[in-house]
């Protein structure tokens, strides 16, 4: 189980959180290809990855996590930025 530090509440067990995946900004205007990429395409890298989690059973706020997908090590957690990091 991951130990995730919510930037608002401190370290909590993974079961308190929900995964949000990579943050992707919704396009203002979109042709089929852009819309398809917004809906379905997310990067799936091996190594450090910037993703979003929500503290579902806590403060219910979204935040940003940098995690290594090869080791599950959590590199840092920060408050949600606008626009979210990791947008294509």
């Amino acid at each position, binding site marked *: 189980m991951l130990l995730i530090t919510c930037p608002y509440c401190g370290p909590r067990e*993974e079961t308190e959180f929900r*995964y949000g995946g990579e943050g992707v900004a919704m396009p203002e205007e979109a042709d*089929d290809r852009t819309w398809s990429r917004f*809906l379905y*395409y997310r*990067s799936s890298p*091996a190594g450090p*990855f910037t993703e979003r989690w929500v503290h579902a059973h806590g403060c219910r706020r979204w935040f940003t996590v940098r995690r290594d*997908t090869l080791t*599950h090590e959590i590199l840092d957690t920060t408050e949600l930025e606008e626009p979210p990091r990791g947008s294509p």
Partner: protein
Amino acid sequence: MTEPAFQNPEFLWRNPEPKSAYDVVIVGGGLHGLSTAYYLAKNHDVKSIAVLERGWLGNGNAVRNTTIIRSNYLRDESMPLYELSLKLWESLSAELEYDVLFDQRGLLQLAHTKTEVNDARRTVYANRLSGIDAEWLEPAEVQEFCPIVNVSRSIRYPVLGALLQRRGGIARHDLVMFALARAASAKGVDLLQGCEVTGFDIRKNRVVGVETSRGKIAAGRVGLAGAGRTPLLARMAGIDLPIQSTPLQALVSDGLEPVLNAVVMSGLLHVYVSQARNGGLVMGAARDNYVSYAQRGSFQILEWQIQAALELYPVLGRAHLLRTWAGIVDVSPDASPIIGRTPVESLFVNCGWGTGGFKATPVSGFIYAHTLAHGEPHELNRAFSLSRFETGALIDEHGAAAVAH
């Protein structure tokens, strides 16, 4: 080639040195890669074929699955695909002259809510219309078919019935790997272990070869079959795929006397159980839904799975946990595979089988071999193209995945 892991007995398959060029190079020496190589050599006029595997053959999801085989999918595109796979399984041991212990012991998918009952009955009708065997069982019939299932009304999610596919079952995953590797090698396919693809030689948007840890290899066509690692491979060729790679966990108990005569799945409680021939209870769990290549998951997922198993099968309460593992599954947005062309000429992809790739082993190779040989999809995988995520013609199989991953 000094590492002990690569020193397979020569009667299984040859360990040749890489040649400088092949007609078709398949990247990924798992079950799908080996199956593709076998059918390519058997069914098509392709002279030189290589399978490139970065580790040793079958070291990924081939040995990290729960070996369940069924064909009771829901969509018009999926049903014939998985049904052909089941038919190929039925003759695979004879065809490969190697017993893969395919055992059609029957597969039950339990329904615990009114919605699940309706969905299961709909699947029964859809399957029958497509010539796939399917039956609906009432709770008492479930009990009769599989006596250890708890059909009491007093549990949190009582069993309201089940979908039964009598032709469903299990096979021995490692034997399938040995059988396919042996048969492919005998037909002249070069199985190259310890041969990691590090890049693609792409000229004027056409792939002409691969760079590997054992040197450059020219290729007429390249087929990716890397399961969870396919997004990483594709990115080396400059291609993005709508695939998320996440861990899917499973566990096995120590050996028990025979207690479970069928494969039993529960989507709502999220546990699926079968008893291996050595007596171990093999159980599958939920996905950890975060991106990972670590081949391990979270403890709480196993805990939920065991809780569900004990409610459904109280008799398993005295079993001991022997081993747990996780495979990295390549999940597509509509829970259906992506098989066909990519934006790069002569580079093909077969991925996105997600949590259900083992059952598809024969058909995946069968249709992918056709696609690689002709440069065009087989009739059965035409709808499973990468372009469906732009046209919107998705093949939504989330509901039919038996357990909703």
